[in-house]
C-alpha cells in the first residue's frame, strides 16, 4: 500500500510532508494535486523531507503527497538512443507536444506536472530471438539468468540493442516470443522459478542510485581515441577510464566535451548537460543529426543520448540527472558496448547537493558543501570501468566517464576540483591564460596528467608505430624544459640564451602551433587520426633532433630557421593543410625539412 500524506512546509525545492510513516528513503513520491515528482531525502518521525524535481511555486500546505513504493528509476529498453531527456528521464520533445495540446503558445516552455513515459509505448520494434553476434538461441526449458541475451532489436543504424534477462530474474525459460513486431511492454519471454512465472518485456526499470551488476571489473587496456592530439598523444583516456576536465569559464570545457562526444571511438555516447546552458544542448540536438559518426559514417545522433537539465530548470532534477545518465551508460555497457559518459558540469551537480543540504539545514563542510560531497563523487566515478558483463554469451563492455568541473574563479583548490582529483585518473586542466591567447584546446601540459600512458602504450606500438612512446616522451621533455626556460627569459630576455636553449624555445613553439593547438571547427583539423598525430610529432621532433646536432656543431638557430625558411610555417600548418587521407605529404615535408638541414650541414662543413 503506497503511503499517503500531506504537505506541511514548502521552501524552494524542499517540501516536508507529514503522515508519511512507512515511506522508504529515496522513494519516489508524487507531490501536490499536480503530482509533481519528488524523492524522499530524509525521514523524521512521520515526516518526510522531499526534494521536488519541478517548480514548487503555488504549492500549499495540506496538499496530498503519495508514495510510489519504488525508488527513482529509469526505463531501459529500445528507443533511448537519439533522444533528449530532462533530468528525470522525461522526453523533452514529448513534453512540448503535451503542452502544445492544451496551450499552443506555451509549447516552448517546460511546464510542470507533465507526465510522459521515457520510452514510447506505441512504437513497435522488430524482435529477433537469439544473440546477434554468435547466433546462439535460447529455447524453452533452458536455464537463464541475468544478462542472458534473449534476442535483439535494431535500435538505430549503428546500434543493435540486445534484449537481456533483467537483473534479478533467474530460472527456466518457459516461453520466448518468435520473431515479430512488439512494443516495449509486450511480453517477450516468461521465466519460471519455484513455480512462479516472471514476465520479461523489452523494457525494464532500474533504480538510478544503484549500480547495475556485472561479473568482474577489469583493468582498462585500450585507449579511447578522441582525435584530439593533446589528449591521445600526451594525456590519453582509456576505455573504461575516468577523467576530469576543470577550467574557469571561457577555457573551452564545453567545446572540448562536444569534440569528445563527436569524435571519440565510443559506440554509445551519453551527454549530460547538468546545470549548463540551454543553447549548448540545442547545439548538440541540431548539429549531431547532421554530423557523421567518424567511425561508421552514420548520423552521430544514432549513438547519442542527451540528458538536459539546463541551469534554469529545477535544481533538484540536476542532482538526479547524473545518476540517470550513468544508469543508461551501464545498461549499454551490459550489452557489450564501449560507452562514453560526458557530464557537463559536475560542479553544478555538487551545487545542487549543496542547495538541498542547505534547505535541510545540514551541517556544512567546506564552502557550504555537505560533508558527503567526496563520497558522492567517489560513488559516481566508481561506476565507470571496463567489465565482463553478466550472462551469456560472454561480452566485455566499458563505461568511460569524463566530468567537467567549473571551479569558482578558476581556483583548482576548491572542494569539487580537489575531491574529484582523488577519484579520477586523467586530469585535463584547462588554463585561462592559454584560452586568453586562443590556444585551444587550452589543456595545460604542465599540470595535466594521465595514469593510462603505460596501459595504452602497447596499443600505439602495435597499431601505429613502435617508436610512439619515445617520441611522446621526448616532446614532453622539450615542453617541460621550455617551461623552465621561460622563467629565465622573464629575467634576461631571449637574446642572451644559449643557442641550444633557443632551439628548445623554437621547437616548443612549433609543438604548440603545429601540434597542440587544434581547431575544433576546422573540417580537417577537428579530428586528427592516430597515424597523423604520430607523423606530425615525428616530423617536428626529427627536425629538432637534426637541428640540435647542427647547433652542437656550431650552427645558430637563426641559421637553421633561414635554412628551413618557409618549411617551418609548412610544418606548423600541416595539421590543417594536409588532408587526413594524404598523410604521405607529411613524410614528404619531413624529408624536405631534413634535406634543408643537411644542406646547411654541408655548408658549415
Amino acid at each position, binding site marked *: 500500500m503506497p503511503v499517503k500524506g500531506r504537505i506541511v512546509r514548502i521552501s524552494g525545492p524542499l517540501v516536508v510532508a507529514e503522515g508519511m510513516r512507512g515511506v522508504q528513503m529515496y522513494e519516489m513520491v508524487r507531490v501536490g494535486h499536480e503530482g509533481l515528482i519528488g524523492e524522499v531525502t530524509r525521514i523524521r518521525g512521520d515526516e518526510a523531507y522531499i526534494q521536488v524535481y519541478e517548480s514548487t511555486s503555488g504549492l500549499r500546505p495540506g496538499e496530498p503527497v503519495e508514495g510510489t513504493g519504488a525508488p527513482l528509476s529509469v526505463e531501459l529498453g529500445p528507443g533511448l538512443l537519439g533522444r533528449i531527456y530532462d533530468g528525470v528521464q522525461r522526453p523533452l520533445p514529448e513534453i512540448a507536444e503535451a503542452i502544445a495540446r492544451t496551450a499552443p503558445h506555451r509549447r516552448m516552455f517546460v511546464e510542470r506536472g507533465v507526465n510522459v513515459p521515457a520510452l514510447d509505448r506505441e512504437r513497435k520494434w522488430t524482435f529477433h530471438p537469439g544473440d546477434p553476434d554468435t547466433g546462439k538461441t535460447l529455447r524453452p526449458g533452458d536455464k537463464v539468468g541475468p544478462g542472458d541475451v534473449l534476442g535483439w532489436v535494431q535500435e538505430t543504424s549503428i546500434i543493435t540493442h540486445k534484449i537481456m534477462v533483467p537483473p534479478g530474474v533467474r530460472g527456466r525459460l518457459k516461453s520466448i516470443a518468435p520473431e515479430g513486431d512488439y512494443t516495449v511492454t509486450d511480453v517477450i519471454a516468461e521465466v519460471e522459478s519455484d513455480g512462479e512465472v516472471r514476465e520479461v518485456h523489452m523494457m525494464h526499470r532500474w533504480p538510478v542510485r544503484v549500480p547495475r551488476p556485472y561479473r568482474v571489473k577489469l583493468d582498462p587496456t585500450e585507449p579511447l581515441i578522441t582525435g584530439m592530439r593533446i589528449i591521445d598523444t600526451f594525456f590519453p583516456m582509456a576505455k573504461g577510464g575516468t577523467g576530469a576536465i576543470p577550467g574557469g569559464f571561457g577555457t573551452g570545457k564545453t567545446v572540448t566535451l562536444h569534440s569528445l562526444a563527436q569524435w571519440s571511438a565510443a559506440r554509445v555516447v551519453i551527454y549530460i548537460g547538468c546545470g549548463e546552458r540551454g*543553447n549548448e544542448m540545442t547545439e548538440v540536438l541540431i548539429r549531431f543529426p547532421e554530423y557523421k559518426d567518424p567511425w561508421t559514417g552514420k548520423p552521430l545522433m544514432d549513438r547519442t543520448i542527451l540528458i538536459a537539465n539546463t541551469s534554469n530548470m529545477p535544481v533538484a532534477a540536476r542532482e538526479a540527472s547524473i545518476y540517470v545518465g550513468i544508469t543508461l551508460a551501464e545498461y549499454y555497457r551490459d550489452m557489450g558496448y564501449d560507452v562514453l559518459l560526458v557530464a557537463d558540469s559536475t560542479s553544478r551537480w555538487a551545487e545542487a547537493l549543496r542547495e538541498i543540504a542547505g534547505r535541510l539545514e545540514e551541517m556544512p563542510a567546506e564552502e557550504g558543501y555537505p560533508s558527503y560531497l567526496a563520497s558522492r563523487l567517489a560513488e559516481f566515478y566508481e561506476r565507470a570501468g571496463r567489465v565482463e558483463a553478466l550472462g551469456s554469451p560472454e561480452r566485455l563492455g566499458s563505461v568511460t566517464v569524463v566530468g567537467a568541473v567549473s571551479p569558482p574563479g578558476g581556483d583548482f583548490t576548491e572542494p569539487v576540483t580537489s575531491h574529484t582529483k582523488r577519484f579520477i585518473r586523467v586530469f585535463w586542466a584547462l588554463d585561462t591564460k592559454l584560452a586568453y591567447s586562443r590556444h585551444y584546446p587550452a589543456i595545460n601540459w604542465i599540470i595535466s596528467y594521465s595514469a593510462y600512458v603505460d596501459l595504452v602504450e602497447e596499443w600505439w606500438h602495435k597499431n601505429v608505430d613502435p617508436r610512439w612512446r619515445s617520441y611522446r616522451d621526448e616532446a614532453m621533455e622539450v615542453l617541460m624544459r621550455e617551461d623552465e626556460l621561460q622563467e629565465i627569459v622573464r629575467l634576461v630576455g631571449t637574446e642572451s640564451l644559449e643557442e641550444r636553449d633557443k632551439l628548445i624555445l623554437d621547437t616548443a613553439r612549433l609543438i604548440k602551433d603545429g601540434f597542440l593547438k587544434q581547431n575544433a571547427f576546422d573540417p580537417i583539423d577537428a579530428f586528427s587520426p592516430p597515424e597523423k598525430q604520430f607523423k606530425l610529432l615525428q616530423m617536428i621532433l626529427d627536425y629538432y633532433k637534426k637541428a640540435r646536432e647542427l647547433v652542437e656543431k656550431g650552427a645558430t638557430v637563426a641559421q637553421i630557421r633561414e635554412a628551413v625558411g618557409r618549411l617551418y610555417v609548412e610544418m606548423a600548418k600541416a595539421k590543417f593543410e594536409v588532408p587526413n587521407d594524404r598523410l604521405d605529404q607529411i613524410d614528404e615535408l619531413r624529408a624536405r625539412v631534413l634535406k634543408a638541414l643537411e644542406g646547411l650541414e654541408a655548408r658549415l662543413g
Partner: protein
Amino acid sequence: MLGVREYTRVSEIRGPLLVVEGVSRVAYDEIVEVELPSGEKRRGRVLEVNRNVAVVQVFEGTTGVTTTGTRVRFLGKPLEIPVSEDMLGRIFNGLGEPIDGGPQVEAEERRDVNGAPLNPAERDYPEDFIQTGVSAIDGMNTLVRGQKLPIFSGSGLPHNVLAAQIARQATVRGEAEEFAVIFAAIGIKYDDYLFFRKFFEETGALNKVAMFVNLADEPAMIRLITPRAALTLAEYLAYERDMHVLVILTDMTNYAEALREISAAREEVPGRQGYPGYLYSDLASIYERAGRVKGKKGSITQMPILTMPNDDITHPIPDLTGYITEGQIVLSRELHNRGIYPPINVLMSLSRLMKEGIGPGKTREDHAAVSNQLYAAYSRGVELRSLAAVVGEESLSEVDRKYLKFADEFERRFLSQGVRENRTIEETLDLGWEVLSILPEEELTNIKEELIRKYHPKYRGRP
C-alpha cells in the same frame, strides 16, 4: 488558486521579512499585499510556508511596519505584470507600473514574471550575425541574435556609453528591421538613468524602447523583480509579436547584492563571500531567458552589464555570470586610462556563439582565421611588452620587436574608434589585415595559405 485572504498576526519582522502566523492554505511564491495602519500599501511574496506560518518578503522594505495593526492579504496568485505592444515607448517602475505620467497599460495578457524555463528541444540555435559597428566586438567577439553577452566593467568605465553605442548601431545585415530595446535599470544612479533616457530620446529610439527603472535609492527587494518584469515583456514581444528584442540589464551586481541581503535575512548557509549557494541558479533563471525558439520569428538578445567589485573577474558575480552567459566583453581600466575607447580587453573577452555567426555568406570567409591570428599575435605582443619592460627592448629579437609594434598598432587603429563610428564588418576585417601585415608573413601560422594570398595587403596591391 484561491481568492484573497487577510491575516493580521505578524509575529516577527526581520530585515525585509515578515513572519505571519495563523495563516491557512497559503501558497509558496504567492503574492502578498501588506497594508500599514496608515493605509500605505506595499507588496511582497511568500518565501516559505511552514504549516500555519508564512515568511513574506516585502519588496518596499519593512521600515515603519508594526506587528500590530498591519494587515497582510494573500492574493492567491504569483506576481504578474500586464504585457502589451503598447508598452514600447513607455517608462515603468521596477514592478512594471507606469511612472511616465501616461495611462495604465491596456493588457493584452497578464504573465507571471518568473516565466518558465525554455525547453532545449524547442530552442533554435542562434546564428544571425549582429553588426554592432564596433571592431573589437564584430571582428573578434561577434554577437549573434539570441545570444546573452554581458559587459564586465568596473566603476567609472564607459560601459554605459558602449551599451548605448551598441543599442544604436546594432543591425542584422540585409534586414531593415530594428531591434526593440528593453532596458532594465537595476538599482542604478539617477544620472546613469538620465544618460540612457536622454540617449533614447535623442536618437529618436524611444518609441522602440521600454524602460523598467529601479533607482539606487529605491527599495532593494524590487531589484529582484525588475529584470524579470523586463524579460517577461521581452518574451511576449519576441514570441507573440515576432519582434527582435535587445534587453539591456544594468547593473547585475546590484541585483546579486539584493539577493545576498534577502539570503542573509533568512539566515541561510552562505556560499562564497556571503552570496547564497543558489546564486548561480538564480542568475541562470534570468540569463537563460534569452534565445530563439523554433517556429517563432522573434528573438531575445541579452546584454547584461555588471561592475566587477574591485575590477576582480574572479568575484562570484562575474564568475558565475561568465559560466552562464555565452561569453563576455571585458572592459579594462588600463586601456581606459590610456585613452582608448572602447577599452575592451579582447584577450579576456569571448563570444561563444561567434563561430555560428561568421564565415562565408554571413560575414566573410577569412573572419575566423583573421580573428584567431589577431588573438594569437596580440597576446604574444602583450606578453612581450611586459618582458620588454623588464629586460629592455634591445634584448628582444627582431621578430619580437615587430610583435611589440603590432600590439601598439592593434590598440591604436583596430581597437580604438569613435563613439559614433560605425564600421562595417568588411572595414573591420580589412583593418585587421592591415595591422597583421606589420608581422612577417611566416608568423601568420593560423591562416591558410589561400586566404593570405587573397586578403593580405601585400597581395592586394597595397603598400
